[in-house]
């Protein structure tokens, strides 16, 4: 047992604020980071201390291990919460913290190493009898890679061993293209990750993405907090997540969740983690990867189970262990999360920048907003375009969808283009309402989802014109007689 008294949050945006809130509620002091080029966010307002970090770009500063460790020292922190992204799954960072005598709120460096290598992780899982899709790993025997790939069967997916985020992945449907696609994938892997090693696996048609939240105390106790469905993805990135998954029967749900817990147990997992699966239309599911951190979409789990996952993380980090046993973790109702991103859905999700001129977040029964922005702040291209998350809870899925629609339509962010209208279009889509989606849904329905809807252009122009103070002043200079006479000519 080692009580944390001061926590450095080595992250920014909404997750820094979200972690800070729980930490403060638990009586911890909180330090956060800020790069000179970064706007103040909600976390800076909550924190007890803000440590300035430097670097050629803000992202580089957040990835700078020595600097973050030094910041923790400077802040007098005894623990570091990495949030997600940045250094959250970086074993070297964990080792550096260990060396500095600081607690890392997360798993051990060894587990991170194992799960961070997709090829090793997969082999580890398969060896222990958990389901993985048919696959071939180049490293096993490079000479026979093409032959073994062919044996996996078509369609198949080529992935870089060191990959992530969908980069460098290629789908191959015909044998004649296999060799060429492998070469392309290798070049891309080399370019993106500096590592040209590949593996292939069976490509599951119209798959769903289902993941399971797990948590372990590092002493052999592992529980799951049920699943989340994250099939709504654009460019392989999730933007709508929900729980429970509408795809699963109770038996399947139990099976997939226990599989996940089993995998975590196999590594004696410590902290919060997520086991991701590919779920096929026939009900089969295959291990995809394990994320050894808190996920962006963790709030939906919190909404239906009633647990604060960050509080659990901190308890575990302090050696206090889990606050609950599996039997007490139940799903109540339904929760949906929408990722509010500064991007133009109609222009291939091009990131948008601008100044937030007006911000009014939705409120009400079952509505939660985890936000990383403040009114007056500037949205730049320095960071990920996600600005905030809107999470709703309802008694059932239909109610959750209705609440999510109402809330996202009420979410007012003016000054930068966001995807709120697009998210509303997703929620309004009949296939989404029916729960009949796959990870290809957004691409398949792109046209419907970005359809312009009712033409309000003239009303919008009218509003813009009537809020143009200089225009009104100019028109106001015309005296009443001339206004009322209009464009009279004799």
């Amino acid at each position, binding site marked *: 047992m080692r009580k944390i008294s001061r926590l450095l949050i080595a992250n920014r945006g909404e997750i820094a604020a979200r972690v800070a809130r729980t930490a403060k509620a638990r009586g911890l002091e909180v330090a956060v980071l800020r790069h000179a080029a970064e706007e103040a966010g909600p976390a800076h307002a909550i924190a007890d201390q803000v440590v300035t970090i430097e670097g050629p770009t803000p992202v580089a500063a957040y990835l700078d291990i020595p600097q973050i460790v030094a910041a923790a020292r400077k802040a007098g922190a005894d623990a570091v919460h990495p949030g997600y992204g940045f250094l959250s799954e970086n074993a070297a960072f964990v080792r550096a913290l260990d060396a500095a005598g600081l607690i890392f709120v997360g798993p051990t460096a060894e587990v991170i190493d194992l799960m961070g290598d997709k090829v090793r992780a997969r082999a580890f899982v398969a060896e222990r009898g958990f389901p993985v899709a048919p696959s071939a790993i180049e490293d096993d025997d490079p000479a026979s890679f093409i032959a073994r790939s062919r044996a996996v069967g078509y369609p198949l997916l080529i992935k870089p061993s060191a990959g992530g985020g969908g980069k460098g992945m290629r789908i191959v449907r015909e044998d004649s293209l296999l060799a060429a696609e492998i070469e392309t994938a290798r070049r891309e892997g080399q370019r993106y990750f500096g590592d040209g090693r590949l593996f292939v696996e069976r490509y599951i048609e119209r798959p769903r993405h289902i993941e399971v939240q797990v948590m372990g105390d590092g002493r052999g106790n592992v529980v799951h907090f049920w699943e989340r469905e994250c099939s709504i993805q654009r460019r392989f990135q999730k933007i709508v997540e929900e729980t429970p998954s509408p795809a699963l029967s109770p038996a399947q749900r139990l099976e997939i969740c226990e599989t996940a817990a089993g995998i975590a147990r196999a590594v004696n997992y410590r902290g919060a983690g997520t086991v991701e699966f590919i779920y096929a239309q026939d009900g089969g599911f295959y291990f995809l990867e394990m994320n050894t951190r808190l996920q962006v979409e963790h709030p939906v789990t919190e909404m239906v189970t009633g647990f604060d996952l960050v509080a659990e993380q901190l308890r575990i980090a302090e050696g206090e262990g889990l606050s609950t046993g599996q039997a007490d973790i139940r799903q109540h109702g339904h929760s949906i999360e929408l990722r509010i991103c500064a991007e133009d859905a109609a222009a291939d999700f091009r990131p948008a920048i601008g100044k937030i*001129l007006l911000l009014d977040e939705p409120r009400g029964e079952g509505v939660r907003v985890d936000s990383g922005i403040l009114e007056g702040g500037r949205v730049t291209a320095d960071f990920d375009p996600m600005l905030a998350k809107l999470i709703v809870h309802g008694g059932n899925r239909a109610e959750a969808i209705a609440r999510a629609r109402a809330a996202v339509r009420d979410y007012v962010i*003016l000054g930068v283009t966001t995807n*709120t209208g697009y998210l509303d279009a997703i929620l309004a889509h009949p296939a989404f309402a029916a729960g009949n989606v796959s990870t290809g849904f957004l691409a398949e329905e792109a046209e419907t989802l970005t359809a312009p809807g009712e033409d309000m*252009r003239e009303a919008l122009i009218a*509003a813009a014109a*009537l809020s*143009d103070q200089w225009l009104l002043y100019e028109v106001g200079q015309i005296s*009443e007689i001339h206004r009322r006479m209009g464009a009279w000519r004799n």
Partner: protein
Amino acid sequence: MRRIFEIGGEEREFWLSHDGRGYALHEGARQYSAALTPAEGKGAYVLEYEGRRIPLRLAVGDGATFIHLNGRAWEVGVIDPAERLAGAGAGAGGDVVLAPMPGVVVSVAVQPGDAVVEGQPILVIESMKLETTLTAPRGGRVAEIGFGPGESFGLKAVLARLAPEEG
């Protein structure tokens, strides 16, 4: 009184009038009546437009107005046509850099053939015990530099010439 509004890449020119009772927007021969009244809430208004009452939220930015209407946010670019005309005028800057007064060339920053942008320093001259930097009147390519460092010149001498614009 005129503005160009841009939505989704489309530009439309409107003008606003006020007949003593209410506003009307005009586009060509078409006319729309409109009124905007503040409502409860940050940036909240009700737009009365062609007989409809439309609640909305609105924020005026630099060169664009952002409107949350009917559950969606929109960006409406607002351009004063005069700005555009003034911009067009800037491109019409002359081809030559003339000496504003007699003097001596101190230094030359570009050579014939160099591409320059509008406002880029071309040469520094000294006259009346004062150094003055002369800049490119428009973007283009330098065709000729009339004088080298140390050379003196008279009023209105052509110190530099830009290649004529194509088209």
